[in-house]
């Protein structure tokens, strides 16, 4: 029981990070049907932006009174800057190809991924960069098991962001514009929705959430690396597909589910950790082949 609860907590924590990345994939795919291969690297950039903000504010050794408002600033700045980077990428690399043959934006997205990775590589080098852990330490004793306070904070933080996102999409005018654009771009345009702006906002939100994921990941694992976005991106995309691509709630559920699967494989099977990626990518292929709509998705029309 104890072991199970611990593994579940680890899984949910990893899953929270994957879910935050998966939201960006699923929103972008939902609205322009593009697999944004660069999204994993946008997540890495977000992590590094957070690191820069932390050291600029000198939060590594700050007292708790300064730390909490400081962290709010770090998250806000990193998410905003990363959002703008996402919007810039869309404007420069994807928008000119919106009506091009399908292959073209896909190849550009792969290229953008490498451009970002290359830039981080040049600035930060090929090695692990250490990240301060600014999350509260200590354990919560539940009697039958004890779980880290940090894990609880991460899961609650991610859930909070997801609930906020869902409310934004369901309740606000911009959210309604996003849903309308995803359903039928031309009809939405006829209704007076500014399509370009709506797509830009989608990229902004997706990239901002990825930055939050990147910072949380840095705190939790205390290292960050220029190419971490490739694997994390592919796993998060699996989560988005597993939950039903284009579906925000699905991406969140998919993220947590994939996180739990990865940690259970590593926890319950001897030498399982080295096979977890193989299992996850097999889930990706399996889902696309047998149930391309995922757990919650609706069938997207083949064009």
């Amino acid at each position, binding site marked *: 029981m104890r072991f199970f609860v611990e593994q579940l907590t680890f899984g949910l924590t990893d899953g929270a990070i994957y879910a935050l990345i998966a939201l960006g994939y699923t929103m972008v795919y939902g609205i322009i*049907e*593009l*697999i944004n291969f660069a999204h994993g690297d946008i997540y890495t950039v977000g992590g590094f932006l957070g690191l820069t903000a932390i050291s600029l504010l000198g939060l590594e050794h700050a007292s708790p009174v300064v730390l909490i408002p400081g962290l709010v600033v770090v998250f806000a700045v990193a998410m905003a800057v990363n959002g703008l980077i996402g919007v810039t990428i869309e404007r420069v*690399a994807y928008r*000119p*190809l919106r*009506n*091009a*043959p*399908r*292959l*073209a*934006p*896909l*190849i*550009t997205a*792969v*290229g*953008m*991924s*490498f*451009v*970002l*990775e*290359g*830039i981080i*590589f*040049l600035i930060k080098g*090929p090695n692990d960069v250490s990240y301060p852990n600014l999350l509260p330490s200590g354990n919560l004793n539940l009697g039958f098991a004890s779980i880290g306070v940090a894990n609880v904070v991460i899961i609650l933080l991610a859930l909070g962001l997801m609930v906020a996102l869902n409310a934004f999409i369901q309740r606000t005018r911009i959210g309604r514009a996003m849903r309308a654009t995803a359903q039928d*771009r*031309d009809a939405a345009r006829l209704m007076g929705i500014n399509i370009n702006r709506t797509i830009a906002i989608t990229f902004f939100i997706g990239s901002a959430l990825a930055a939050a994921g990147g910072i949380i990941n840095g705190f939790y694992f205390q290292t960050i690396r220029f*190419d971490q976005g*490739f694997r994390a991106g*592919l796993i998060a*995309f*699996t989560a988005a*597909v597993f939950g039903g691509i284009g579906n925000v709630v699905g991406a969140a559920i998919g993220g947590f589910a994939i996180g739990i699967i990865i940690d259970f494989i590593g926890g319950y099977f001897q030498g399982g950790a*080295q*096979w977890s*990626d*193989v299992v996850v*990518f*097999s889930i*990706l*292929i399996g889902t*696309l*082949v047998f149930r*391309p709509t995922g757990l919650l998705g609706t069938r997207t029309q*083949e*064009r």
Partner: protein
Amino acid sequence: MKRPSGQRQPGFLERARSFELRGWGAAGRARNVPYLLLGIALILFPILDSDSSQVNVAADAGHWILLALGLNIVVGYAGLLDLGYAAFFAIGSYAFAILASGQFHIHISFWILLPVSAFIAALFGVLLGAPTLRLRGDYLAIVTLGFGEIVPRVFRNATPITGGVNGIVGIDQPRLPPILGWDGKFGFNPVPYYYLILAILILSIFLINNLRNSRLGRAWMAIREDEVAASATGINTVTTKLLAFALGASFSGFAGTYYASKLFLVVPESFSFQAVSVVVLVMVVLGGMGNMRGVIVGAILIYTIQTYLLIQLPGWIDSATAALNIDWLTKLDLGHYAQQSNYLIFGLILVGIMLLRPQGLIPSAQRKVELELGTSEDSLAELQGQV
């Protein structure tokens, strides 16, 4: 996206016919002279290069050209984005390494395994393709990407069979009967490898050229342009795509066998997305999707950038900044950056080509029209008001 309907097709057919005819007429012979000269130069090249160092570089470049030609079948002809091409290269390499090394004390001849490992790679192409080629194009890209990540990890983890992270060392090398005072052993001498890959390449170019002009090749291009219309004309789209996948994979199987035997070892790390799949994709995209000449030029260019320019450039930059003797310029340490910038360069090539010249450096005339004016997929979508 406006295009006068029905104009492209007859134009293309005429071009294709005149291309075939050109090869045989008197004028055709004159056109072939540069190729003939190039062929002679390529054959004489090892004799002129006394210490064989450049021959070695050329012999290594050869398998990259082969990989690019194979991927061009999938991406250029059939228009399917395969981001896991490294997987088939790895399968070809490991198939040869397992069947021709001390790993299990099996030593089957290189010449038998060359087609066998290509067949094994093609088989895996079919295994992956059969369930997934029904999916839409972008799902296929992500499925192949996933497959490309699974295969090297399986090779890394299946230690009893594949040697795990250490890979397989001591792979057999090709042998020929002794001729003209040469004992027929390839060893570590690059010259026989050079002629071997040259022969494989010439054969492959001949085969692929014939494939392209065959019924199958035309079916690939029809599917690339408009899958629905191709299907309506009686083309079995799944089988046709599957053949593109399998044939593309088989060429990377050839390349893998050659690569493993020349390098003498295989390790799982050399088959990653970053090390192979993207590099080959950049070669194809830069040269010109769908055009063999372009793809070959693209492969040579990228190989040169990767193995020569990026290694030589830091030295040049350092000596240039030292000669200029400008303090801040020296401090920037540009040379250090140059060597590490291959990710950035590849990314910029992919983005830049797609935005500015999607047909590549040396375009296929037909692909150029499609990429500039759009394929009828878009026109159909436009008609239905879906753009």
